């Protein structure tokens, strides 16, 4: 048995438990230092994962598999978590609740890491619930009416989606007698009525994961939850949790249902168009910035889905590239909002009015993130979109690429509206902007990475090509 494969998850488990215990035993004044410890734990885990990715041994132990695909996503989650920790510090400035908050955040990340590495539906279920349950608690963390409302909606719909997942899993178990994704594949395609049941079970799983990715029409919870949650948690949900659900969707479909590809490809083409169009149209008429970015992140998931509608090596590696880029630009944008929310106490678009002049660096970074989300030259977003759309055209789906291109143009309207407020609308009231270095470091790094990937995308694209799941 090669227990060494489990080192990264062991480290992260230990770190999250230590943060939890530290919260109980540390005196009040020392509790803010738990943030640094959490960041340290995540960084060490990231180191261990990077080592496995580049030099270490890979393979599988029980139903936990370690390959480039799994490790790539684990790197995305850990980087996302580091950025989230950095943007949480000002939100938690009293720091008393730091232990609880960061241990939940680390446990959610642990759930995401296990989720993407599981080869068995039982471990997928348990790790999905670890991610979900920690997220429910994080959404409710502000403990006020809106936070509670967002959490309640997330919880009720999430509970329903996990019931759907359970039922789909039980059908698959009934049809194949196994919970292992690779063995389920061997039982497909069965003859006659069993085939329909198999497809039904597959679609139940797609619905359950689609809920987590917030695909239209399973997105109803997302805007409310994203608006109600503390802003750093919104960033986390919209990047890490979404990427985790997308990764497991990809893995389940490609490992367990490669033979059913004609069915799921059509489904995802429709879901992709619906998701990007509805997300963009709804984002156009939002005045609340957090809600606008929530709809924008729904639309972004629509672009990534192109990889499932046209599953070729080109689109799959593009989606992996895009998810990494998206983690930086989206968490970056939310990190700036987390700060302006906390200082101005407002979330509407007026709260950033004049920010480009009163706080030039933060305004510049937010501009970079928004341009990247929209997909303008010299940003990671453009590169990701270019690879995705080009892959769709090369894969023979010109109409899908055309719809996606039209949608990106549509999205410029609401991103540029925010940029107009940043530079050309004077602020109504002046605020004192406190300097918070962990936050500045986070936002600055995210902006630099966004620009770097836009100018020099080749290395990351090469890594993404290395990390493809086995193609159907």
């Amino acid at each position, binding site marked *: 048995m090669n227990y060494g494969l489990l080192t990264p998850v062991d480290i992260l488990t230990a770190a999250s438990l230590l943060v939890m215990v530290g919260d109980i035993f540390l005196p009040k004044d020392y509790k803010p230092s738990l943030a640094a410890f959490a960041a340290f734990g995540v960084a060490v885990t990231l180191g261990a994962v990077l080592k496995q990715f580049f030099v270490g041994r890979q393979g599988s132990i029980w139903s936990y598999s370690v390959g480039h695909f799994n490790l790539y996503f684990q790197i995305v989650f850990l980087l996302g978590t580091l950025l989230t920790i950095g943007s949480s510090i000002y939100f938690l400035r009293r720091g008393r609740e730091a232990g609880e908050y960061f241990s939940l955040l680390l446990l959610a990340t642990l759930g995401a890491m296990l989720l993407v590495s599981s080869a068995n539906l039982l471990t997928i*279920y348990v790790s999905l619930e670890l991610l979900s349950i920690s997220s429910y*608690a994080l959404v409710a963390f502000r403990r006020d009416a809106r936070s509670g409302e967002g*959490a*309640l909606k997330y919880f009720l719909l999430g509970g*329903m989606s996990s019931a759907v997942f359970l039922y789909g899993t039980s059908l698959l178990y009934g049809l194949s007698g196994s919970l292992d994704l690779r063995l389920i594949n061997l039982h497909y395609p069965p003859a006659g009525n069993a085939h329909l049941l198999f497809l039904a079970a597959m679609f139940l799983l797609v619905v359950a994961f689609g809920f987590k990715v917030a695909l239209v029409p399973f997105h109803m919870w997302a805007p409310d939850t994203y608006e109600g949650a503390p802003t750093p948690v919104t960033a986390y949900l919209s990047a890490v949790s979404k990427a985790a659900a997308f990764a497991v969707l990809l893995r389940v479909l490609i490992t367990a249902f490669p033979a059913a590809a004609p069915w799921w490809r059509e489904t995802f083409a429709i879901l992709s168009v619906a998701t990007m169009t509805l997300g963009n149209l709804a984002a156009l008429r939002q005045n609340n910035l957090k809600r606008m970015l929530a709809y924008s992140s729904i639309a972004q998931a629509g672009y990534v889905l192109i990889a499932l509608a046209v599953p070729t090596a080109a689109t799959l590696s593009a989606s992996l590239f895009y998810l990494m880029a998206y983690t930086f630009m989206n968490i970056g944008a939310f990190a700036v909002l987390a700060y302006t929310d906390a200082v101005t106490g407002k979330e509407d678009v007026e709260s950033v009015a004049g920010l480009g002049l009163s706080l030039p660096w933060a305004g510049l970074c937010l501009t970079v993130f928004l341009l990247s989300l929209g997909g303008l030259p010299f940003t990671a977003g453009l590169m990701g979109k270019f690879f995705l759309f080009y892959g769709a055209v090369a894969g023979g789906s010109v109409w899908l690429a055309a719809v996606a291109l039209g949608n990106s143009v549509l999205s410029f309207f609401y991103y540029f509206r925010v940029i107009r407020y940043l530079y050309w609308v004077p602020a109504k009231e002046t605020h004192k902007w406190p300097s918070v270095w962990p936050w500045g470091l986070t936002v600055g790094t995210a902006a630099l990475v966004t620009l770097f990937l836009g100018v020099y995308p080749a290395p990351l694209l090469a890594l993404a090509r290395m990390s493809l799941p086995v193609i159907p």
Partner: protein
Amino acid sequence: MNPYLLTSVLLLALGTVGVLIRRNPLVMFMSIEMMWNSANLAFVSFSRHWLSQGGQVFVFLALTVAAAEVAIGLGIIVLVFRYRHQIDADQINSLKG
């Protein structure tokens, strides 16, 4: 069709209808529990059919996870109730648009 599976499908349908038409989060949550348990029943009967232990083990873990979910869920419902003094899902609508 095996009577156990029939019961499980009925429970699933009842639970789904319950979530969709009832407006009290506690009752909605009870309906969700019913959906979870319909899947558990299916697992146990399939486990019997295949004479394998996988389904039984799954049910054990699913029940444990459900217990954790209940703890968080009731906490959230209490939190909402504390601010609004009502738990009608139609009234919980300050976030929309």
